[in-house]
């Protein structure tokens, strides 16, 4: 039995479990069975991945070969790069399952299992066609999770689907060009110089949230359901990071794309009121670090990207879970309507603060051990402008994810809301995740940092022996944190005071900041209006095209009118003449 299970990709087990969950009736007893599947299937997959990989001695395990349209597919490739993604995806699947235990929604459970399976399958895909198939399953299964967020999520889901289908089409086009040119569909380093390389990079870029391709993320994630956002935040983008690491490691343009990615969401996140949207922006910003690390492509940088991916999944899930718990109990997640919740949801508050500390890279929290690796790699590579951008972005992350999110939710002015603490299963999921967030950052023989570092893909000397806990690293990071907290306090203070009092203090720095903020606000307002205007114009444009097309192609249109037989006969003769012309003279 066990041998049988190890003979193909564990992704299929998860997808099968998802389909099975779809057939389990939604009565309360059998929904327990579904929950067992939801938690058990990723756990089984975790065990299987481990067994498959360590039951043999090769550093790369290839298996699950299939033949499809005369092309040999390798559906299961476990090597030092993919296994770390496989592990963390399974762990995230289990945690999401626990977090969703209270929920009685067949569609979410089914889609979540299929979605998880597709993510794992894509990570273990040994060739581009397998990758493409799981890529599409991933998009299709996740959109149902978006749609569970209520009526407002439907248009967002459609936009989300459109972007991901576009990504799939680009990938397909790219892989066909690439496969034809190189004669192989194997998924290894592609590079932008390869035929079709740009198309594939663009396909990956959409999923990874490259600047200007990122909007689906902030659009769809905040509109999904309480559990949905937590599930969504794990797989799609991190799969994209994996595919970039596999196909485009060391591509220089990624360094700059990554740097821009880290910086631009900061402004939006600071302005945003919807806290899950703030987190979506910060998710985008965190992906920027990983993309940057992949772009540098040294062993240290790739290890940093992989480590950052692992810890990022954990603390971002934790933050989304805590915001989900708040939404579940309070019913809103608008910063302006929350506040003072630490009284009624103390455990959630503590977990949220742990997540915030982790994302802010406070020493002895998981963000620290990964982010310093990427920063060190950037510095070693001599990209000082990029380094400065990443530093700025780190401060920004601290500002909006590290301080703004917990502060406005649990402290700030008391909103007067008194609610129950989150359900036990949510607390359990958050608790485990919070534990991991701390444990993975503890050095020494009893800490978890060694396990994290041992898993990293490149086992070169520098990576395994990388020590984040040097005095300079810690002091540097603490300075950054202090500066950001100070800045927040300062801004908060001016936010509290009426404008006229502020005007009495003549401080150049203050004017500058106010002007800067006003400028940002003005740009944002103009941007919104421009957006609305463009949308309006585009809508007009498309409806015009639609009307014209209707006039031509509809049953009542010119094109479809039943031509009398006489005219048809004349047209046939015309065609004959056309063919004759071609045959005679071309």
């Amino acid at each position: 039995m066990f041998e049988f299970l190890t003979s193909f990709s564990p992704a299929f087990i998860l997808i099968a479990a998802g389909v099975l969950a779809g057939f389990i009736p939604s009565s309360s007893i059998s929904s327990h069975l579904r929950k067992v599947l939801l938690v058990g299937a990723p756990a089984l997959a975790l065990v299987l991945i481990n067994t498959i990989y360590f039951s043999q001695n090769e550093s790369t395990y290839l298996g699950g070969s299939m033949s499809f349209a005369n092309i040999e597919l390798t559906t299961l490739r476990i090597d030092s790069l993919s296994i770390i993604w496989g592990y963390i995806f399974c762990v995230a699947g289990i945690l999401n399952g626990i977090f969703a235990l209270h929920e009685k929604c067949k569609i979410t459970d089914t889609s979540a299992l299929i979605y998880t399976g597709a993510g794992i399958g894509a990570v273990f895909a040994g060739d581009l066609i397998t990758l493409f198939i799981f890529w599409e399953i991933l998009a299709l299964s996740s959109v149902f999770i978006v749609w569970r967020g209520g009526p407002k999520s439907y248009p967002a889901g459609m936009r989300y689907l459109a972007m991901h289908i576009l990504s799939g089409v680009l990938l397909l086009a790219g892989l066909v060009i690439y496969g034809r040119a190189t004669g192989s569909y194997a998924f290894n380093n592609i590079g932008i110089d390869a035929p079709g390389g740009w198309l594939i990079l663009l396909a990956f870029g959409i999923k990874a949230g490259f600047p200007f391709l990122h909007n689906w993320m902030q659009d769809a994630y905040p509109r999904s359901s309480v559990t949905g956002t937590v599930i969504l935040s794990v797989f799609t983008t991190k799969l994209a990071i994996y595919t970039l690491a596999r196909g485009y490691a060391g591509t220089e343009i990624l360094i700059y794309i990554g740097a821009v990615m880290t910086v631009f969401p900061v402004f939006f996140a600071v302005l945003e009121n919807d806290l899950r949207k703030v987190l979506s922006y910060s998710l985008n910003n965190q992906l920027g670090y990983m993309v940057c690390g992949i772009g540098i492509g040294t062993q240290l940088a790739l290890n940093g990207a992989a480590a950052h991916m692992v810890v990022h999944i954990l603390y971002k899930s934790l933050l989304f879970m805590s915001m989900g718990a708040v939404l579940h109990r309070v019913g809103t997640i608008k910063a302006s309507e929350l506040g003072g919740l630490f009284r009624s949801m103390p455990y959630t508050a503590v977990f949220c603060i742990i997540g915030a500390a982790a994302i802010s890279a406070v020493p002895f929290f998981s963000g620290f051990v990964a982010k310093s690796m990427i920063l060190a790699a950037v510095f070693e590579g001599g990209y000082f402008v990029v380094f400065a951008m990443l530093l700025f972005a780190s401060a920004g992350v601290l500002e909006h994810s590290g301080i703004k999110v917990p502060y406005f939710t649990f402290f700030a002015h008391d909103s007067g809301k008194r609610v129950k603490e989150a359900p036990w299963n949510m607390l359990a999921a958050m608790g485990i995740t919070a534990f991991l967030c701390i444990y993975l950052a503890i050095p020494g023989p009893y800490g978890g940092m060694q396990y994290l570092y041992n898993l990293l893909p490149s086992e070169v000397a520098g990576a395994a022996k990388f020590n984040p806990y040097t005095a300079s690293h810690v002091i540097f990071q603490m300075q950054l944190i202090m500066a950001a907290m100070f800045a927040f306090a300062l801004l908060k203070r001016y936010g509290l005071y009426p404008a006229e009092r502020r005007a009495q203090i003549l401080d150049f720095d203050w004017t500058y900041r106010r002007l800067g903020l006003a400028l940002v606000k003005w740009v944002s307002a103009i941007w919104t209006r421009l957006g609305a205007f463009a949308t309006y114009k585009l809508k007009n444009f498309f409806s015009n095209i639609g009307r014209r097309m209707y006039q031509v192609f509809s049953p009542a249109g010119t094109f479809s009118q039943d031509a009398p037989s006489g005219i048809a006969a004349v047209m046939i003769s015309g065609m004959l003449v056309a063919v004759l012309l071609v045959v005679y003279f071309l």
Partner: protein
Amino acid sequence: MDLLSLFPEWVLVHGPAAIVVLPLMFGALVALSPSEKLSWATTWIVTGLSGLMSLGLLLQVISHGPIGYAMGGWKPPLGIAYSVDALNAPILLLISVVAFICTIYALPSVVAEVGPKKRSTFYAVFLLSFAGLMGMVATADAFNVFVFLEISSISTYALVAMGSSRDRRALPSSFNYLIMGSIGATFFVIGIGFLYMQTGTLNMMDMARVLQDIGPGDRVVQLAFAFIVIGLGLKLAMFPLHTWLPTAYAYAPSFFTAFLAATATKAALYLLMRFTFTVFDPSWDFISTALMVIIAGLGTIGMLAASLQAIFQSDIRRVLAFSSVAQVGYILLGIGMATTLGLTAGYLHILNHAVMKGALFLAVGAFWYRFGITKVSDMRGLGKTMPWTMAGFTIAGLSLIGVPGTVGFVSKLALVQAAAENGWWWAIGVIVVSSVLAIVYVGRMIEQAYFQPVPKINDRYIKRNEAPLMMLIPLWTLALASVAFGINSHWPMSLAQGAAQVLNDGPILLIRETMPAIPAIPSTGGH
């Protein structure tokens, strides 16, 4: 176990003629039959037998090469020759199997759609139409092709007109088809006439041999080619010549529409390939230009224009009919590439499209049978009221879009690969755009069925009313086939590769090897 050994020897020897003569003969007998059940059963058995014989012929061709047959013992090139090779054997099997499957469906459907006195005649004419298609494909004689083309066409006009018991618009559409079809057939026979004038023979292989001597510079040969392409282009609904098709498909009886959509244009496509590649020579300049400009060019224009038209249709059957025109465009694109990969892809799509479009039209017939639904907007809630029928429709619809795991994906992927090999990037663009359009027109129907509420009558929801089993079985057979061959595409792919091999070898090989191989009827034969 060797399947081939199960077939008696006379099937393999006389099969090429028997698959045509049998339905032709029983067509006449069925017309006299007093009971419609008897007619139906006869039709079913005859199509079934033809299917079995076609299978035997296909297996024989795969293992032993082409089979020739001299009609009545008259040796070609004087007598009429029949020839079954890797190019037409799969088409024969396709036509007869689709006919067999659709006939199961016919029993309930014909009762509902055709007037009681016309039913026996209906089956008789159907058998004639079936015989005509089989004859067109099986014969190796150019004039004989015309004869069977007319047999199948005229019976098709009659069958389309029989849809008038259900919808009077069947009559003008049948008339329209009659006029255009006759023009097409006339063009075709004029082309054959020119060829006869130049070569002095009607046997295709002999013709090809003489044409090789005449060479590509001859104006009359070029004229003949133009006439034949236009004549066949009408029959196979090449883009601007397709205007007969949507109305004919929309108003013919459902069962016949499914058969027609799955097979009729396919037989004409086969003839186009047979003439272009094995009678004429694709290496000739004017042929290769015409393939690229006319066949591939019109194919791509058709893919876009017909798909756009399908999007705006309100009648389900017309949506599917326009989609057929678009799908013919895919096939023409593959043929127009004239490379091994392109021809394989085009041929594969002939087989695959027949399976999925057949299933779709069968499902539409079932919608009409239960609820009288013909409009897309009336499909509201069909996912609940006819779940099994709608599920079959959805599978075939997804295949039409080209979702991975279905036959539609296999042939589109093959086509994209072929285009990439040729460097025809614009063609890949057109395929992608046209697939997106297919998502729209199929998605529109699926959305209505699954995401719109079940309609109410007198404030009560319409109850579930599934199609009868005799409709569901054929529908699901085709739907499952479209998934099975989509997941394991080895068999259809090998058939398509065999056919592309024949086309690639061009005319020379046929003369050298097939001609002497045609056996006369053995002297001890059973006659």
